[in-house]
């Protein structure tokens, strides 16, 4: 009978997790372009897409906006969700970047669990994504005094943050899984775009999902898209207007998060560094 050697290692490796988190943040603040993008990108979406679309809906299509929301209030949670989707899956790209630039090798030979590396890195990416989400909401609240976006309650806001964290981890897992499966950075960006954009467009983030009710397949596709449930949850918690049952939003997002975090952790632990 083979005797399995017991390795005494703490289940929770605080220092390595912290240092992976710290590294993500140092890198973020070291790159001025990334800081700039964090503030500029929500502004661009809100100003150059949010306002024009609001105009269209204000002039005759307002019956399509659920719960009688001003369109601007409708689109803000969608743009916040988009940040989570892109930010989360992007963390898969950074795993690959590290792989190409050799940094991953140095980390992989450290006597640290790979899951700790993953947790630390994801927490770093989460922190950055939350900075971006809060920036977006902050800008939206200012514009919202004219355009009609406000947060209905503090409890809703706090629940929304919690829900967004789960959502973010779901997309981190999704990105990691894809990242570990695809070999080179170029291929990754192409494939990620081909998955991210349809997910984003067919999620009710920009336009109400009921707009395409009469179009078969396209309409149904929205319901197999996990982001649809994420967007609905975030929107409901911010504005009080849910299209789908809140429990369904939560169930789908939690299930999606668990599935892909498991797959991502598995793929990451098996990834060859060479």
């Amino acid at each position, binding site marked *: 009978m083979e005797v399995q*050697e017991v*390795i005494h*290692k703490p289940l929770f*490796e605080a*220092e*390595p997790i*912290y*240092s992976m988190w*710290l*590294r993500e943040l*140092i*890198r973020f603040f*070291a*790159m001025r372009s990334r800081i700039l993008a964090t503030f500029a990108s929500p502004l661009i979406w809100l100003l150059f897409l949010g306002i024009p679309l609001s105009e269209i809906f204000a002039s005759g299509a307002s019956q399509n906006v659920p719960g009688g929301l001003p369109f601007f209030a409708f689109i803000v949670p969608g743009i916040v969700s988009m940040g989570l989707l892109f930010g989360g899956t992007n963390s898969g790209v950074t795993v690959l970047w590290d792989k190409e*630039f*050799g*940094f991953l*090798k*140095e*980390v*992989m*030979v*450290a*006597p*640290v669990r790979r899951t700790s590396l993953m947790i630390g890195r994801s927490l770093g990416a989460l922190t950055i994504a939350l900075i971006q989400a809060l920036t977006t909401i902050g800008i939206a609240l200012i514009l919202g005094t004219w355009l009609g976006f406000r947060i209905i309650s503090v409890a809703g806001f706090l629940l929304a943050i919690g829900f967004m964290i789960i959502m973010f981890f779901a997309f981190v897992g999704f990105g990691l899984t894809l990242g570990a499966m695809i070999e080179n950075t170029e291929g990754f960006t192409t494939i990620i775009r081909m998955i991210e954009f349809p997910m984003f467009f067919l999620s009710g983030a920009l336009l109400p999902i009921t707009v395409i009710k009469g179009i078969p397949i396209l309409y149904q596709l929205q319901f197999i898209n996990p982001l649809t449930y994420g967007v609905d949850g975030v929107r409901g918690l911010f504005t009080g207007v849910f299209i789908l049952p809140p429990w369904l939003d939560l169930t789908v997002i939690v299930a999606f998060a668990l599935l892909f975090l498991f797959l991502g952790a598995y793929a990451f632990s098996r990834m060859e*560094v*060479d």
Partner: protein
Amino acid sequence: MTEDVIGVHDLTKKFGDFVAVDHINFAVKRGEIFGFLGPNGAGKSTAIKMLTTLLHPTSGSAEICGYDVVKDSEEVRRHIGIVFQDRSSDDYLTGRQNLDFHARMYEMSREERESKIEEVLDLLELKGKENIKLHNLPEGVRRRFEVARGFMTRPDVVFLDEPTIGFDIKARMDLWNQIKRAREIEGVTVSLTTHFIEEANYLCDRVAIIDKAKIIALDTPQKLKEAVGSDLISLQIADGGEKRAAFMEKVNELDWITRAEEYSNSILLNAESGEGRVADLIDFADTHGFVITSIDEHEPSLEDVFLYFTGRTIREAEGG
């Protein structure tokens, strides 16, 4: 006290049908600088990757400080420092941040980290450069930070994969001396791969010459060179081919020539040491109707050792 820090037994790695490392055996003692010398593609990096737990051997085994590289890979990792051949630091962090990050991964305390960073900065002569982002530093300095990182965690063995590749001669000399000094001060064992003859010769206590996945010779540089013989004379004969073959036959009659070999278009002779061998050879050639177009006498180098064991120069071996 002499004790084996690295023990390697019939270590083999195959990639499909390709044998990258073929049943190699050696042991490295504490405090030694041990080098793998061989052309690119000889299997040096694959061997070092198995010793550093990055690749699993196909067969055979290896221990570092008594820990098996497969079964106790975690323990092995705690006892080694690695300097990879490819760049493996974060360009967007400063040298100090990179070192600090590395130390945190090994759960070193703050005091330990700070004192050790000072120490390795000193060791590799990096003081004053530690707060600059790596992508703003020249390649040689960046590389030195990676070497410094290899010494951060008080390892028993530091592995260096082609440490001075892409260096100019001055930077190379500096790093060699820094590595030697680090060994003296830290008492650490160093294992490195190189395809630079001078590097193996200057830096290593013992050298394993590796070619086509096998270790073909292993000893101190001095002993390896002695194995080749005393003085070496290389010469070229005018009119090539047949003339050269005829000369080979004749020259073997000289009792002070111990060995004569033909390599591509030149002849390499081992001569018993003595005065005026070159002049004697020229006279000898004259008498028998040969014209020597070039002649050169030198002490054997590791290049000659490689040539002696493989029949090729390292450069030729790399050319294919």
